[in-house]
Each structure stands twice: as structure tokens, then as C-alpha cells.
């Protein structure tokens, strides 16, 4: 089964939305999480879990458009998005290691793309 381009595009967009999950969860973890009330009123926590879920829900229908062994590796783009988003929203710093990692993940998914066609 050939993997269709819309499926790859959908997985990539799903990972971008899902990547906001860890960003919000990180913000959530800075607050007290001991009491039930503080958990259900922590909108970062709720938002983080919600975005994680949206990412997964968008990923599943994409599997109709191709092979799992092609589409699943594209989930690794999440790491790329999280690295960029944590600089933008959490004030974290990039470093040489992260840049190498980002480059390799992009190269890796490109190889998957070449292998699928």
C-alpha cells in the first residue's frame, strides 16, 4: 500500500498540536498538584492532556492513508516541535546537541519518505 501525502501531512500536523501538550504539562507541573481541587482547576494540566488527546485523535484516521511503518516514524517530529516551542513559550535555550537532534530527526523522516515511494 502506497502511503498518501495527505496522511503524512495529517500526522505532521497532529504532532504539532500534540507538542503543545508537554509545554502545557510543564507549566502545570510548576503548580501544586497535591489536592483534587488544585488538579481540576489547573487549566494548564487540563489543556495539556486535551491537546495530547487531540494529537492522538488526529493521528488515528491518518493511518487509513498508508502504512504504519511509514506514518509512525513521522510522530518523531513531536521532538522537533517541543524543542522549538519550549524556547518560545518556556524560555528554554537551544544547544548544539538539540540542533543535531533536530537535524537528524528531519533527515530520518526524509529517509522514511524516500523508502515509502
Amino acid at each position, binding site marked *: *500500500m502506497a502511503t498518501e501525502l495527505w496522511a503524512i501531512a495529517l500526522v505532521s500536523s497532529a504532532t504539532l498540536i500534540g*507538542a503543545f501538550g*508537554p*509545554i502545557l*504539562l*510543564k507549566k502545570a*507541573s510548576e503548580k501544586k498538584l497535591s489536592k483534587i481541587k488544585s488538579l481540576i482547576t489547573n487549566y494548564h494540566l487540563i489543556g495539556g492532556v486535551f491537546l*495530547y488527546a487531540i494529537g*492522538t485523535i488526529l*493521528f*488515528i*484516521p491518518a*493511518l*487509513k492513508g498508508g*502504512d*504504519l*511503518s*511509514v506514518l*509512525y*516514524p513521522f510522530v*518523531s517530529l*513531536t*521532538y522537533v516541535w*517541543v*524543542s522549538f*516551542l*519550549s524556547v518560545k513559550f*518556556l524560555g*528554554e535555550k537551544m*544547544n*548544539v*546537541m*538539540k540542533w*543535531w*537532534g*533536530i*537535524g*537528524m*530527526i*528531519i*533527515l*530520518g*523522516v*526524509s*529517509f*522514511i*519518505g*524516500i*523508502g*515509502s515511494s
Partner: protein
Amino acid sequence: MHFTIKVQYKNKFNKKDIKTIEKNKIKMTTKLWAMGLVLFCTLLTSTAQIFYKFGVATLELNILSIITNIYLITGLLLYGIGGILIIISFRGGEVSVLYPIIATSYIWVSFLSIYFLDESMNFFKWLGVFVIMAGIVFIGYGSKKGTAEGVGVI
């Protein structure tokens, strides 16, 4: 011999240093359960992908078809349990150690796709899998505990 080493240690480190060494030893043992737990989670979330793929084969766009799809529900359940356990395990370990273990999921999914979905791998697909894994290892080493990466990505 034993005695001389002991003397050397005594000269090299003061009490505070020895305390930090002891602390790190405790940290190392906590890492082991975290590593085991992450590996277990990785196998759960990889298996979830196979269930998703089985699930979408019979999926139609109506609520009843979605909520009665046993494959999809099993997949989501496995993924959910895996996700919660990964967040717990990140409290007991460093990102640089746990990320490489999570990265093995790309190998598991490739093998599971071959055996359960009759998919085929080729040179470029395997190359892609290993280059992606190497990339995740690099990001893990570039990240510290307490960063967004430390929350855990699945």
C-alpha cells in the same frame, strides 16, 4: 592496597563530597525502575499503534461505530496507560537516559508492522528509523530534567 585507596579517598574528598556521592548512588538505583518502566511503556504504546491500524480498517464516521470499535478502544487504553506511566517514570530518571529507551519504539513498531500488518521494510526505511533514534538520543542529551522534554513525549 585497600588501605591506601581509602587514605587517598580521604584526602581527595571532604565529607560533603562523600554525601553527594552517596546521594548519586541512590539516584542510580531509582533510575533502574524508571528505565524498566519506560521500556514497558514503550512496548505498550507500540502495541497500541497496531490496534489503531486494525481499528481504522473497519472504522466508519458515526459515533456508534467509533465507541464500539474494540480495537480502537484497546489501543487508546494501552496508549493512555503508557502515557501515565511514562510521566511517572520521568520523575525517577534523567531525560538523557530515558529518551534513548523511548526511541526504541520505532524499532518495535517496524517489527510489529511486519508481523501483524504484512508491511515491508527496506534499506531507506530502516536507515530512517535509526537516524531518527540517533536524533532523539541527541535531543535527550541536550535536555535537562525539569525542561519540557522532561515531561515525556510519547
